[in-house]
């Protein structure tokens, strides 16, 4: 190559590199990196006197042999839309994500409908999908519903990745699935269980967990297209799963996690005082945990409500507890009975999901014996009665 020609090539390379890096720096500078938590308005009106409500029923109709991992959100008209996964058995190829709507006026669940299947997800993502798992529903600041759900292409749940679908009509129709990339290691082993939170700048915060080599939790920040634009580690090591993040204000939040592995059989807690940029080292709370999922929320009154298995060994009971001091101490309120008379065998309560809707009522959904999704509706007055 002639000297002048070689110099020309080098100049072109240099100009190209400078242009590309300038564009990339510009993009990097526009990524939203830090924001405060968005916390919904607390109730300031004086509480109206109401009769205590406590009702138990089934959200799923038994249309599939097994069901698991319910999630729910309030939709238009005060109705409640729930999702879960169901099929012939956990991990089977026929497992799909199902949904049903609780009519607020009639207090009855509608027929369950298939929201998405393994085949549909596979087609959307242009990659083989072996099975589907945990769904989590969230509403973004624009009012759109997002359904996040786990899928596995190879191996067990430790090979999971998270997918997202969006709905602009409260869950009647859904966009095609997209893939969340949360790990550089083949994007393996990220799952969801806990409800999403909001940031002031419009981002969603999705609590996730990993269980490949380590078992640890993270809070992933998602933009308006559900692309991962940041994340923070809530814990590390081999002992914490399925985080539930409860913001108190713009800067402070508590994350509660399922304990796993060799750590003490207690729910683990970590806190932030800078909107999730840093989290304290996880500490065991006084609350038992037999390596099982939990649910928690901050009520309109500002108290924390917790649903958990009050045992160190099994999931045979599901208990509601309340904390008035931001999770420093808990008072057990109520132990739930099995939804039907159990003649023989064990009964297992798993994967609770708690939500408080606009009218102040609470809804608890959980998996019972992997056979049905149980729905429990109660109100503030019932809680006060059981304090």
């Amino acid at each position: 190559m002639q000297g002048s020609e070689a110099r020309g090539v080098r100049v072109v390379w240099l100009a190209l590199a400078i242009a590309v890096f300038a564009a990339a720096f510009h993009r990097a500078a526009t990524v939203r990196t830090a924001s405060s938590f968005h916390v919904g308005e607390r109730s300031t009106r004086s509480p109206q006197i109401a009769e205590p409500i406590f009702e138990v029923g089934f959200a799923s109709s038994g249309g599939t042999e097994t069901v698991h991992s319910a999630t729910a959100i309030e939709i238009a008209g005060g109705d409640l839309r729930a999702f879960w996964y169901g099929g012939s058995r956990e991990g089977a190829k026929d497992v799909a994500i199902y949904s049903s709507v609780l009519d607020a006026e009639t207090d009855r669940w509608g027929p369950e409908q298939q929201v998405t299947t393994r085949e549909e997800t596979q087609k959307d993502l242009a990659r083989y999908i072996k099975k589907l798992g945990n769904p989590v529903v969230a509403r973004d600041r624009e009012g759109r519903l997002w359904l996040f759900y786990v899928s596995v292409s190879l191996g067990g749940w430790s090979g999971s990745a998270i997918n997202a679908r969006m709905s602009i009509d409260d869950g009647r129709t859904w966009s095609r699935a997209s893939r969340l990339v949360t790990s550089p290691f083949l994007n393996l082993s990220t799952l969801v269980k806990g409800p999403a939170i909001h940031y002031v700048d419009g981002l969603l915060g999705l609590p996730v967990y990993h269980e490949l080599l380590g078992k640890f939790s993270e809070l992933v920040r998602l933009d308006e297209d559900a692309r991962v634009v940041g994340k923070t580690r809530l814990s590390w090591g081999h002992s914490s799963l399925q985080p539930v993040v409860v913001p108190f204000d713009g800067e402070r939040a508590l994350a509660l996690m399922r304990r796993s592995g060799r750590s003490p059989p207690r729910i683990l807690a970590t806190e932030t005082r800078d909107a999730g940029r840093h989290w304290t080292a996880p500490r065991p709370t006084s609350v038992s945990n037999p390596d099982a999922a939990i649910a928690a929320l901050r009520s309109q009154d500002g108290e924390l409500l917790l649903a958990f298995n009050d045992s160190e060994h099994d999931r045979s009971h599901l208990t509601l507890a309340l904390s008035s001091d931001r999770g420093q101490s808990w008072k057990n309120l109520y132990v739930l009975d099995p939804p039907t008379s159990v003649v023989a065998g064990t009964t297992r309560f798993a994967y609770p999901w708690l939500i408080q809707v606009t009218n102040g009522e609470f809804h608890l959904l959980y998996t019972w014996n992997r056979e049905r999704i149980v729905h429990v509706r109660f109100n503030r007055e019932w809680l006060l009665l059981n304090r």
Partner: protein
Amino acid sequence: MASPQSLTGLTGIGLLFVWCALALGPRRRPWLVGALAFGLSWLPVSGMTLAGYIRAVSSDLSVTSMALLTCAMAPQLGASSLGSRDEWRFVFRLVATGGLFLYPMVLGLGPFDPYTLGFAPTGLLALLALTAGLAWWRRYHVCLGAIVLSVLAFRLDLLESSNLWDYLLDPWLVLYAIYDLRPWRRNVQTTCEAASRPRRALRGSSA
């Protein structure tokens, strides 16, 4: 119709098909062999392309991998060898160093997660710009091209990920780089040399 990001991912797997075909297939008409292999990767089996099955396991290749694969195949497709032995070793040292820094910690070793550096990657881009400048200075155009293409793809969101690390590295590339740099290896054979003698390279024999 797959999304643009999925098309990029499937194209990466298609390049792997081509690389394997050129390494294992007949040496005559390499362009035809490569084109057939690429076409094979898009062949649907039970409603899913072959590349889709591989991608489910491999995840998407990084843009660096795609660029280096293309460079490594160049001699077999009639072009001159790209990159000197020193340059390829330079590239693989960078890749191995990046991978050994990144992967242990993202898998949960310790509280720090270096993957977060790739979301708003001003610092990482500055480091890359320095590396690209060094590569330009030393006339390492394969290295420079791989970096520039990766950064450009990141800017254009060509992969599903919005994290710069995923454009730069993938575990397969890191494994190959470590394999290529293995210290017990005698008579180092560069990837370009391996590409020109593919059957021996795939068997892992030293030159």
